[in-house]
């Protein structure tokens, strides 16, 4: 139980995918302008991360490992995730139209998101069991949401600030992102302090 809490919180705070590992920067900068689209995108990412881990983990341990083909993991995972996201979209469209309407526009964006591929590969690297891998994926998704929501707040404040012409737009956004990322460095070591 303690192990699960540690994995969950280190994935959210210490090893935050966006702010500490710098994965998934593209949606982080692209979709964080408005709070509701930031939340929609993060829910979709969390959803796909968990599903992707649930499919790739068995493929790795029951297909690749027995045949000594572990080097194939990256290419196979890309294949599986891409097909999985498309399949999920078709299923949602047919059976859960309301969920499809809220997540629909974000799902195709996630197909080739590096954060999703990253979480599946890191689960393998860390040699997590199935349950721990799922917990880690959930934590990574929630951490992504935390970063998106925080940054949407920062950006809404920037809308109403005077910004020098040369910094307007992307440059000031990147600077703000790096400051938020610096702030997250404060969490390093917190897990050892609390649970150690």
């Amino acid at each position, binding site marked *: 139980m303690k192990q699960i809490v540690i994995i969950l919180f280190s994935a959210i705070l210490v090893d935050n995918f966006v702010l500490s590992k710098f994965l998934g920067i593209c949606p982080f900068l692209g979709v964080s302008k408005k709070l509701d689209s930031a939340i929609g995108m993060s829910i979709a990412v969390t959803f796909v991360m968990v599903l992707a881990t649930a499919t790739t983990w068995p*493929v790795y341990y029951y*297909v*690749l490992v027995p*045949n000594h*083909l572990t080097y*194939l993991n990256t*290419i*196979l995972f890309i*294949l*599986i995730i*891409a*097909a999985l996201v*498309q*399949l999920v979209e*078709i*299923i949602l*469209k*047919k*059976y859960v*139209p309301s969920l499809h309407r809220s997540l629909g526009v974000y799902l195709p964006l996630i197909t080739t998101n590096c954060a999703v591929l990253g979480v599946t590969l890191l689960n393998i690297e860390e040699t997590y069991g199935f349950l721990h891998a799922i917990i880690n994926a959930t934590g990574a998704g929630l951490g992504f949401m935390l970063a998106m929501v925080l940054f949407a707040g920062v950006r809404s404040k920037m*809308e*109403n*600030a*005077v910004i020098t012409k040369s910094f307007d737009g992307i440059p000031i956004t990147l600077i703000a992102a790096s400051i938020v990322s610096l702030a997250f460095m404060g969490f390093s070591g917190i897990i050892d302090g609390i649970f150690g």
Partner: protein
Amino acid sequence: MAIALPVIIVTVVGVFCGVLLSVADKYMAVPVDERVSEVRAMLPGANCGACGFAGCDEYAEKLVNEGVKTNLCTPGGAGTAQNISAFLGAEFEDVAAKTAIVCCAGTIQHTQYVMDYQGPQTCEACNYNYQGRGSCSHGCLGFGDCVIVCQYGAMEIVNGIAKVDKSRCTGCGMCAKVCPNALIKIVPASSEVFVACSSTDRGAFTRKVCSAGCIGCKRCEKACNFDAITITDNLASIDPEKCTNCGECVKVCPTKVIRVDQCQPQINVPDAG
């Protein structure tokens, strides 16, 4: 032959995914109603939300599938409503033409700036940081957020406040949504008399900061023969349902904040075909 197994595995997984997707696409396809896209093409495509739905796409879908009324699109007007009614065989009801009014009369002649504001030149930013640059915090900020958002060129800033060109206004309500002081209101186009003030401050204070503000004296309330005017929070408001545009209130108003704007809005002529 060590290369055979990985090739087979990747091929099998790829083919499996492909087959799965094509099967899913075939058996779980959601039929797209062609009428939706045709109705969508008839709508103006402004995505303004005046109909109460998220955009033209959603309104078109609701029109076809749930039989919502065809007269909700004010920018499209009666012409669009008739076309859609004819296409869907639905009942036609006339569109209640609407128009925007600016409930502020605080031009630079009537009120003063209290600061030399140098920040971002938008109403939203000025209101967010300083509650406006003028002495009245309820008044028009005059940076023209409404001018930018209007797709029909119906708004302009004259003497420091927004002004509606009623001949161009379609009543879509985009300006009312962006105004940080919420002083742009959407009213039926037939109503000509309106209160050009949004200040809920007490009369004495309003008088100090603006010579054209509503001071809540209640003379209009007494003068109205149709109970159309009520004073709430030191501000007169006219109920367009009851108002007959008789002009009694205009005569008695001491600050001339109740005004008549008779310019008729654009008349949407239905297409002949």
